[in-house]
């Protein structure tokens, strides 16, 4: 509790502070002998209910509390988790999962087939109106318990149902906690750490789950704090107020380069990220309704320069519709990521816009530098980009406005990012399918192409890898030709880890996994681990 009077007295002699070193790590040592890891994120968790959120930072917090039927590792390989085995019917519609015996939720109730089925039924229940339930409701028609197994029945075959069931939204929650109605504030799963407290505005705390079915975690406690200010995250890593910061802004990465002062206390880690940054072009607004104009804009972008200038090299240029790590995704060909101004000018001239035109872009503050870079690049082909920087709520209204409202506002382009957990369908359907045209979904430029729609469905349902790969390739070629969206780059997951902290990994969707982390002997608090 704050002590204003004590603090006032103390403030009268602020110089006294100078005589007492208060380094974060010393404070840690003084207050406890248990091993605790503090993770600092850029935003607080949105919910403790895995199905009622869709934010990467929230997923990082929830990961130690919850588990899914199957688990995806940092390479994308699938492993058994709460399900020990699974089979599917020949038509790919019925999936049977054998549930690991002896599981218990943190609240002490059994995590058996009935509980797993109840958790998944809750996920697809329209009345529950859970924020992360969309794709599951579209794909899963029913979930039943049969002879100790869980049977998931799909509305149509879905090739990537197992990766889909490995995402956080599909984590299994305690039915009792869900019925209580406070799952949004109190995590209750089967994971290696038990939820302790979410002190609003301060932190989230977790403790080791002594009854965990898998390998016991090395750490006693986990703690998450947050700050929206990138420089504060960087300073917290240096002072020891945080053992891990995610994200570490690329601009600070050089402070931890070998030979620099920061290198003695922490190191920068990077992993290929799933966050695709892109610009959606309003295909209903002239001259952007002409695919030649859209292609010309894409050709005039120097994606290598964007990665070097905006990400300080911590990313990859994106030239095609899919994140490069998705199986079957096209990568940038040599030289493709550079600007091709002559070709762009020729295309614009062919489309009758050789003298240029003006388009307006709606952008939020974090993406404004991208808009400024594009503004400079497109000046070279006579295109003027009018930047409309908007606050988050205003931007959402602009971005998800229907065609008529966008036409009235003259919004030609939206810049944003998208993080799909390496499932092609989760990137293609929301961004390119006709049914996802805003405001229904994130097809913000209202692109509509029957052949593309059919190919998206085919990719989702096709289980033969060779056929699927070919369909994906054809689809990407068609999207390249239509250019409804200009992919810009994929940002790496960049995070900072204090020296002595081991076993921290980043999943391919940007989630930081700390449940398996440990502290090296040198980093242990005074007295060592209990």
């Amino acid at each position, binding site marked *: 509790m*704050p*002590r*204003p009077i004590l*603090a*006032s007295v*103390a*403030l009268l002699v*602020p110089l006294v*502070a100078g005589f*007492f*070193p*208060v*380094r*974060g790590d010393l*404070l840690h040592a003084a207050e406890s002998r248990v091993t605790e890891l503090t993770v600092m994120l850029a935003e*607080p968790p*949105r*919910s403790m209910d895995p199905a009622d*959120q*869709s*934010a990467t930072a929230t997923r990082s917090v929830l990961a130690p509390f919850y588990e899914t039927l199957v688990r995806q590792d940092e390479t994308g390989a699938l492993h058994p988790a709460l399900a020990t085995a699974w089979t599917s019917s020949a038509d790919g519609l019925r999936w049977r999962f054998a549930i690991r015996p002896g599981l218990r939720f943190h609240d002490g109730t059994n995590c058996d087939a009935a509980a797993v089925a109840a958790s998944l039924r809750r996920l697809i229940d*329209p009345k529950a*109106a*859970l*924020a*992360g*339930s*969309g794709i599951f*409701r579209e794909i899963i028609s029913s979930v039943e318990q049969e002879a100790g197994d869980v049977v998931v029945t799909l509305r149509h075959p879905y090739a990537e149902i197992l990766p889909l069931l490995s995402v956080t939204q599909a984590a299994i929650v305690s039915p009792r906690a869900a019925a209580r109605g406070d799952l*949004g*504030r109190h995590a209750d799963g089967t994971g290696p750490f038990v939820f302790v407290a979410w*002190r*609003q*505005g*301060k932190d989230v705390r977790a403790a080791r789950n002594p009854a965990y079915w898998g390998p016991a975690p090395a750490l006693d406690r986990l703690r998450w*704090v*947050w*700050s929206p*200010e990138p420089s*504060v995250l960087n*300073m*917290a890593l*240096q*002072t020891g*107020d945080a053992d891990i910061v995610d994200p570490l802004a690329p601009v600070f990465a050089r402070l931890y380069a070998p030979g620099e002062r920061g290198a003695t206390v922490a190191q920068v880690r990077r992993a290929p990220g799933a966050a695709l940054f892109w610009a959606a072009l309003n295909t209903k607004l002239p001259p952007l309704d002409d695919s030649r104009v859209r292609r010309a804009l894409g050709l005039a972008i120097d994606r290598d320069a964007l990665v070097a200038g905006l990400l300080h090299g911590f990313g990859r240029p994106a030239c095609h519709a899919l994140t490069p790590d998705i199986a079957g995704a096209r990568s940038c060909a040599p030289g493709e990521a550079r600007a091709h101004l002559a070709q762009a000018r020729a295309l614009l001239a062919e489309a009758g816009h050789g003298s240029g035109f003006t388009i307006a872009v709606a952008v939020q503050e974090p993406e404004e530098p991208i808009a400024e870079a594009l503004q400079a690049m497109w000046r070279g082909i006579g295109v003027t980009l009018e930047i409309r920087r908007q*606050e*988050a*709520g*205003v931007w*959402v*209204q602009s971005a*998800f406005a229907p065609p008529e409202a966008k036409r009235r506002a003259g919004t030609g382009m939206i810049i*944003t990012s*998208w993080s799909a957990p390496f499932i092609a369908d989760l990137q293609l359907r*929301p961004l390119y399918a006709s049914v*996802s045209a805003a*405001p*229904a*979904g*994130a097809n913000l430029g209202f692109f509509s192409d029957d052949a593309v729609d059919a190919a998206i469905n085919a990719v989702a349902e096709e289980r033969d890898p060779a056929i699927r790969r070919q369909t994906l390739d054809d689809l990407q070629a068609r999207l390249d030709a239509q250019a409804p969206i200009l992919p810009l780059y994929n940002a790496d997951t960049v995070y900072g880890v204090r020296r002595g902290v081991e076993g921290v990994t980043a999943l391919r969707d940007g989630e930081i996994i700390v449940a398996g982390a440990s502290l090296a002997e040198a980093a242990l608090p005074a007295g060592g681990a209990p």
Partner: protein
Amino acid sequence: MMGFLRRAAALPLIMLGVSVAVFVAIHALPGDPARLLAGQQAPEAVVAALRHRLGLDLPLPAQYGRFLLHALHGDFGLSLRNGVPVATLVLGRLPYSLALGGLAYMLALLVGIPGGIVAAARAGSWADHLLTGLTLIGASLAGFWVALLGMEVFAVRLHWLPLMGAGGWRHYVMPACVLALLPAALILRMTRAGLVTVLRQDYIRTARAKGLSPRRVMLRHALPNALAPIIAVSALNIGSLISGAVVTETVFDWPGVARLLVDSVRYRDYPVIQGITLLSVLGVLLATLAADAAIALLDPRQRRMS
């Protein structure tokens, strides 16, 4: 006294008017809370269901009526973001904001009033120029920048003070100093200006002619007469403290109400925004009333006027 009571009695009516204005203003903000909460990856069907779950699809008058009815019973609703009662959220954080704000305010007075007295007593001297110059710098510097600079120097490099968060008294030092910067500068300038005017009055000359010490002239005769505008400005500074706290609490990761307000505006968490705004308005109104009372106590003319 009657005037003061009349103003105090008008408070509920003012609060009712403010609640309507705040409700309308908040709902006029562009941005759909359901979409912001669900994220851009959520299909519209999910967003619509969420909108219904949160009661955001009701007509605005119905939403306001429901809010008012509950507010009269001390229930400001549930946060749209996490379902926590607004009163729990706000009251959990209020002590932190009050402690930090109170401390910063005290610091501003402790620096501003003596500084203003010194500057006025030595008007035109190097001390006066130094102090008024410092106030200009203090009022001009961005709190955000000062905060980051302080963190880099005192936390990262010198390890004297904690970087962020709330805890022991050391955690208060940097945020309170940053928060006090602007009000201290304003109070100092106002005190100096008020005293310089008063010190030119005939009765001050008379007091000096009677042989009173400069200290007695200043503290006994000049300061009480210059206090009224200082108190009025100090009360108004409560507002600037609240707006300053938005930056300070965010940068220093202080678990106060102002930071909650920023997060709530970002997600259009209407009930929380309403709760905090009404609380802030009430705080400013009460501070103004207290200032009026204090001025009336100090100045007999004010008592007669009211």
